[in-house]
C-alpha cells in the first residue's frame, strides 16, 4: 500500500474467491463514487451451455465455482427437473439437503476461520494466525473436513463431486455409509457451537444498514433447496417469477452483472438474509446458539455475518445428523429424464446466498438457453452501498486502517468472484 497525496491504493484485496478491485473516490470526507470492480475474466458458461445435453449440466455448472459446486449442481438440477416435470423421491430430497449441509459446513468453516477471522484478530492469514491461535485454526480445519467428509462420501470428492444428477443421484449412499459420519458430525455440532461463542466475542464496528433481505423461505424448514423467494419488504414470489422482479445491469467497470430489485435497488442475499427471514425455522439448538451470541432480530450489522455463519454451521450439523437418522434409501437413485421440451427455473441457497438458474430445453433434452445469477452478483451493488455509508465514519483514521476496514467490509459478504465472474484491488482517490 502506498499513500501519495489524495490517493490510497492497495493492489490486491486478498482472501476472497476471485479477481476484483475496489475503487473509492472521496471529496473531503464525502464519498463520491464506489466501484466494486471485477476483472475476473469472463468464462461464458451461459453461452457454451447452449447445445449441450441437459443431463450434462450439473457437472458443467459445478465448474463455475470450486468453493460451492454443490450449489450449482442443486440449482441446475431443480431447474431442469421443473422444466421436465420431474418429481423427485422424498429420500432424494433428504439426501440433497444432507449434501448441501456438507457444502455449507465446508464453505462456512473456510470463510470463518481462513478468510474472515484473521481480519478480526489482526493477522494477514490463517497460517500466521495459527502461530498464536493454533487450536482455533485446527478446529476450523477439522470443521471444514467434517463438511468435506459428507461431500466425499456422497460424491466421491470435495470439489466437483460426481454423484449429483438431474432427477436424483447417480448412486446413493448406504445407511451404514452415512452412519460412519455421525461421530464426526456430533463433534462438529459442538465445535460449531463453540465457534459461534468465539466469534461473537470479536469486536464489531458499530455499523447497521436498513437492508432489503432476500432469501428462500419454506414453511417447515430452514431453506436450502426449496421455498418461495421472500424479502422483509413484502416480496413473496416463486422462482419462476424471479426475472420479473430482479434485473441485471451491466456496468463498464465489472465483468459481473449487477443485480437489483425493480424499482427498489440493491438487496442482500446470504446468511444474514436467511437468518433474519427464517429464524423461527432454525432448530432450537441453533436458536439457542444465536441467543447465546446476543444476536437479536433483525441483525443489520454486516460484520456480524461471521456469527450468523457459525449459527448456520450449528444448523447444518444438526440438520445433517437429522437427515442421516431419517434416511431410508430410495427405490431408485434417480428418476429417468423425460423426453419433452420445457422451461424451468429454480433458486437454492448457496452458502453465499440465493443462486438462481433458468433453462430452456428442447424435446431432445438439448439446452437452448441458460441463465445463471450467482449470489455475489446479487450482492455486488449492496457491497458498494455498504462502503458508501461505511467509509465516511472511518475518515479520521490512518489510511492503512481505512483500507483494511474496507476489505473487511467486502469480506463480510464472502464474495465469490469466480462465481460472479479473484483479487480485489483497492484504490481510494481523495479530492
Amino acid at each position, binding site marked *: 500500500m502506498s499513500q501519495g497525496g489524495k490517493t490510497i491504493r492497495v493492489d490486491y484485496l486478498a*482472501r476472497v474467491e476471485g479477481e476484483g478491485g475496489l475503487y473509492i473516490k472521496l471529496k473531503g470526507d464525502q464519498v463520491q463514487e464506489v466501484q466494486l470492480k471485477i476483472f475476473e475474466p469472463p*468464462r*461464458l458458461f451461459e453461452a457454451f451451455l447452449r447445445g449441450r445435453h441437459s443431463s450434462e449440466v450439473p457437472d458443467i455448472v459445478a465448474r*463455475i465455482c*470450486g*468453493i460451492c459446486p454443490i450449489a450449482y449442481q442443486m440449482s441446475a438440477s431443480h431447474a431442469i427437473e421443473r422444466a421436465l416435470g420431474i418429481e423427485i423421491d422424498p429420500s432424494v430430497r433428504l439426501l440433497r439437503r444432507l449434501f448441501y449441509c456438507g457444502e455449507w459446513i465446508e464453505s462456512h468453516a473456510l470463510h470463518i476461520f481462513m478468510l474472515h477471522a484473521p481480519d478480526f484478530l489482526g493477522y494477514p492469514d490463517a497460517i500466521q494466525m495459527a502461530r498464536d491461535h493454533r487450536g482455533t485454526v485446527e478446529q476450523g480445519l477439522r470443521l471444514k473436513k467434517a463438511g*468435506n467428509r459428507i461431500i466425499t462420501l456422497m460424491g466421491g470428492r470435495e470439489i466437483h463431486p460426481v454423484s449429483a444428477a438431474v432427477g436424483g443421484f447417480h448412486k446413493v449412499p448406504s445407511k451404514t455409509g452415512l452412519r460412519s459420519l455421525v461421530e464426526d458430525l456430533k463433534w462438529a455440532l459442538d465445535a460449531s457451537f463453540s465457534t459461534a461463542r468465539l466469534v461473537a466475542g470479536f469486536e464489531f464496528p458499530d455499523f447497521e444498514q436498513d437492508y432489503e433481505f432476500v432469501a428462500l423461505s419454506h414453511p417447515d424448514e430452514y431453506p436450502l433447496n426449496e421455498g418461495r423467494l421472500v424479502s422483509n419488504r413484502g416480496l413473496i414470489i416463486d422462482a419462476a417469477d424471479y426475472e420479473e422482479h430482479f434485473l441485471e445491469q451491466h456496468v463498464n467497470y465489472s465483468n459481473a452483472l449487477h443485480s437489483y430489485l425493480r424499482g427498489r435497488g440493491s438487496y442482500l442475499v446470504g446468511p444474514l438474509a436467511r437468518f433474519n427471514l427464517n429464524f423461527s425455522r432454525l432448530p432450537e439448538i441453533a436458536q439457542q446458539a444465536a441467543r447465546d451470541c446476543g444476536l437479536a432480530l433483525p441483525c443489520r450489522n454486516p460484520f456480524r455475518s461471521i456469527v450468523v455463519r457459525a449459527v448456520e454451521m450449528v444448523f447444518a450439523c444438526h440438520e445433517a445428523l437429522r437427515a442421516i437418522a431419517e434416511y431410508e434409501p430410495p427405490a431408485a437413485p434417480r428418476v429417468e429424464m423425460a423426453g419433452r421440451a420445457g422451461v424451468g427455473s429454480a433458486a437454492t441457497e448457496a452458502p453465499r446466498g440465493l443462486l438462481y438458474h433458468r433453462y430452456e430445453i428442447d424435446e431432445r433434452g438439448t439446452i437452448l438457453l441458460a441463465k445463471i445469477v450467482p449470489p455475489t452478483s446479487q450482492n455486488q451493488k449492496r457491497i458498494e452501498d455498504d462502503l458508501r455509508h461505511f467509509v465516511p465514519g472511518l475518515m479520521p483514521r490512518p489510511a492503512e486502517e481505512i483500507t483494511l476496514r474496507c476489505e473487511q467490509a467486502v469480506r463480510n459478504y464472502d464474495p465469490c468472484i469466480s462465481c460472479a465472474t*479473484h483479487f480485489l484491488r483497492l484504490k481510494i482517490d481523495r479530492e
Partner: protein
Amino acid sequence: MGSKPRIAVFKFASCDGCQLSLLDAEDELLGVAGAVDIVYFPEASRTMLKGPYDIGLVEGSITTHHDAERIQQVRRQCRMLITIGACATAGGIQALRNWKDVDEFVRVVYATPQYISTLKMSTPIAEHVPVDFELRGCPINKHQLIELITATLAGRKPNIPAYSVCMECKRRGTVCVVVARGVACLGPVTQAGCGALCPSFDRGCYGCYGPMESPNTGSLTNQFRILGQNDQQISQSFRSYNAWAWQFRKASEECEHA
C-alpha cells in the same frame, strides 16, 4: 526461516477449485506451511511478497491480453513453474469457445459487449511459457499436489502415473461399466488420478483428468458407436473440461467431420 522454499500461487481464468485443494488438505496444510513459505497466495493471505519464487503453482487458463502478458512475468519470477488443473493444463471448460465465435458468446451473456475484453481462445499455460510440470485434473487430486510439491522440493520425480483410469478401476475392483452395462465411459483414454470415481458411482468417466499418455481415441470412438452414440454425442463427450488437450481435440473433430 529465510532458507525455506518460497511458494507462490497464481490464478488465471478458473473456478478457484484447484488452489482450494491446498486448503482442502486439512490434515497436511499446517505441516506444508511449516516446511515451506507460502509467500504469495491471495486467496488465503493479505501478505503478498515479491518474487523470485522457488515454486509457482498456476491455476487457470489464458483468456485475456492482460493475462497473456501476466503469465510471462509470472514465469520470470518462478524457478519451477507447475500448472495445476484442467484450465491451466488444457484451457478448461471455457475452451469450448475455441470452436465458436467468441463475440457471439459475449453477446449471449452481457448486455454491453463492448465492456468486455476477452481473447478468442482459452489456452493452456504451456502454450505461452515453458512449464516444468503439469498436474492434471478438474479438479486436481490434493494428494497428488502434496506429492508433487514434496517431490519437487526433494528433487525427485513425482509419483504421478500417466496410465488410464481403467487401471484404477481394476485396482479398486469396480466392475467395468462399459462391458457390464454398455455405458459410454472415457476411462480407457483418460489419465488416472481421480481414483476412478465415476465408475464407482455407476456412471461412465467423463474425462476430467484429460488424455492418458497414449490414448486410443479412435478405438473408443468406434466402441461408442457400437453402444449407439451418434457422432455429435461422441464429439461432445471429448469436448468438456479438457476439450483443448490435443488428443481429445483431434478425437472430437474427427467425429464432427465423420
